[in-house]
């Protein structure tokens, strides 16, 4: 029925599956400028702001005696609070760009079982986010410490809690990327999903600040932004989860977003 010359004639046994979906998602991610752009933005923001804050805090430490609460590890990782927005955009775009451009219809015509598509996106994005997030955290740490060392006590990888904070910061960004993917899957629209992501990270804490302080203490530690601060701090903070409990909770948030998003992806028309 089909021309014999075609290389496609040799239909492999079995059926399409996760491995092909992974390869395809990897090609998608690396073949778009927006990927490189959001990763570059994350590097610039995280490392640049980390360096600026490190210089400022170290100088205040040396010249004005602002010594209490000075934690060189924590200070060098401050830029993460800005870099997190860039990785959120990356996570959102992985799915919303498919909807805005119609690519989702190509994707689902090739892989009609939608959870397979979403799972492949989770693994690909998760892997890329983990590698770049850990890289950016380590670089931010070393750049920050080099700056701080000139005028204040600095940290090294063997300083208690330092390594855990760096790794924790990278894990925080990674899970945020997956949370963003979950929001994008649920909301479908790029602007809407980014707004939701920013709202959760930046607006929720502001809303919380307007509540009575007893609420702040009780609820504050559940907010993703505060979990992030716990994860990138060498010591456990007051009214806060430990780094690893926070990581587990944040992962649960991301999992819920992905499960709900995945459920609507299956139920709705493409």
């Amino acid at each position, binding site marked *: *029925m*089909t*021309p014999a010359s*075609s*290389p*496609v*004639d040799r*239909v*492999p046994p*079995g*059926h*399409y599956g996760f491995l*092909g*979906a992974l*390869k*395809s998602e990897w*090609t*998608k991610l690396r*073949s*778009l*400028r*927006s990927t490189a752009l959001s990763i570059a933005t994350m590097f610039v923001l995280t490392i640049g702001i980390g360096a600026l804050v490190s210089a400022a805090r170290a100088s205040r430490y040396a010249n004005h005696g602002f010594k209490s609460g000075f934690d060189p590890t924590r200070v060098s990782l401050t830029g993460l609070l800005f870099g997190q927005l860039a990785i959120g955009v990356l996570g959102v775009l992985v799915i919303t*760009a*498919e909807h805005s*451009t*119609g*690519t*989702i*219809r*190509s*994707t*689902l*015509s*090739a*892989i*009609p*079982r939608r959870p397979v598509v979403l799972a492949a996106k989770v693994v690909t994005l998760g892997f890329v986010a983990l590698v770049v997030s850990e890289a950016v955290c380590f670089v931010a740490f070393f750049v920050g410490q080099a700056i701080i060392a000139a005028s204040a006590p600095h940290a090294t990888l063997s300083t208690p809690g330092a390594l855990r904070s760096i790794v924790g910061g990278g894990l925080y960004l990674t899970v945020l990327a997956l949370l963003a993917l979950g929001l994008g899957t649920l909301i479908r629209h790029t602007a809407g999903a980014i707004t939701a992501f920013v709202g959760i990270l930046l607006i929720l804490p502001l809303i919380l600040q307007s509540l009575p302080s007893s609420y702040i203490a009780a609820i504050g530690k559940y907010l993703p932004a505060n979990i992030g601060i716990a994860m990138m701090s060498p010591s456990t903070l007051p009214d806060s989860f430990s780094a690893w409990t926070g990581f587990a909770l944040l992962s649960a948030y991301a999992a819920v977003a992905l499960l709900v998003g995945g459920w609507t992806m299956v*139920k709705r*028309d*493409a």
Partner: protein
Amino acid sequence: MIVADGLSKSFGDNVAVDNLSFEIHPGQVTGFLGPNGAGKSTTMRMIMGLDHPKSGTVTVNGRPYHSLPWPLREVGALLEASAIHPGRSAYNHLLTMAQTNAIPKARVNEVLELVGLSHVARRRVGKFSLGMGQRLGIAVALLGDPGVMLFDEPVNGLDPEGIRWVRNLLRSFAAEGRTVFVSSHLMSEMALTADHLLVIGKGKLIADTPVADFIAQSSRQFVRVRTPDPLSLTRSIERAGGTVIEESDGALAVTGLEAAEIGDIAASQQVALHELSLQSASLEEAFMEITGSSVEFRAETGAETGAR
């Protein structure tokens, strides 16, 4: 082979597809004809498992789309709306598709060659012209060398040369024994491309018939007569069983009698004839009439005989 059984789909209160049942067979081009908004694209998306039917089922080669083992190797589709990221190159888009269904990279280059896009394969799709975009869409459909092919309005936006290219391509796919299902809102296009027709209007199946039969059944033929004495000729024709409608310029549109019979009547009545010609309503008119979408058009031409 595509089989739909009682396929229905609503968007809110709007019934887009209404209890469609059909079979689309291999080895011929099946045209899917209907005016804009008739439900063609929605039906195609349901075949592909992209839209969920409200009720009914549709299978491709005996299975629902989502349980095909290698979908792209069985079904190739050019959907109406663009389904390609403008920021990605043609090559990379095809590669993302090929990788999902274990289709070798060599095939990506092969289909790019086939549709004549090799020289722009690395260029971002956003920079493509409409025609190049359609060619890329066709390359995607060909990627898995599938036995079933769906094309939703494939000639939209193409120049005459491109239209001829697509037409010949579809006919050659059918000649190779593939199932070719192609939608259009243009009867004239379908008359040239399709062997068999599914006609829909407002989501409902109106006809499922060979193209030739559809044209024969739906064409309105009439005889145009001009005479200095229309009143007496009209009376005579009506007495002989014909139906007469006066056209706006005074000519008579006659149905129910052959031109020769009308000539004989005129001769026996000694009425002069200035014109006696067989007219056929165009395919487009026939199609409009059948899908009931052009009431104004009929009133305007006066060619309607009121027989339906």
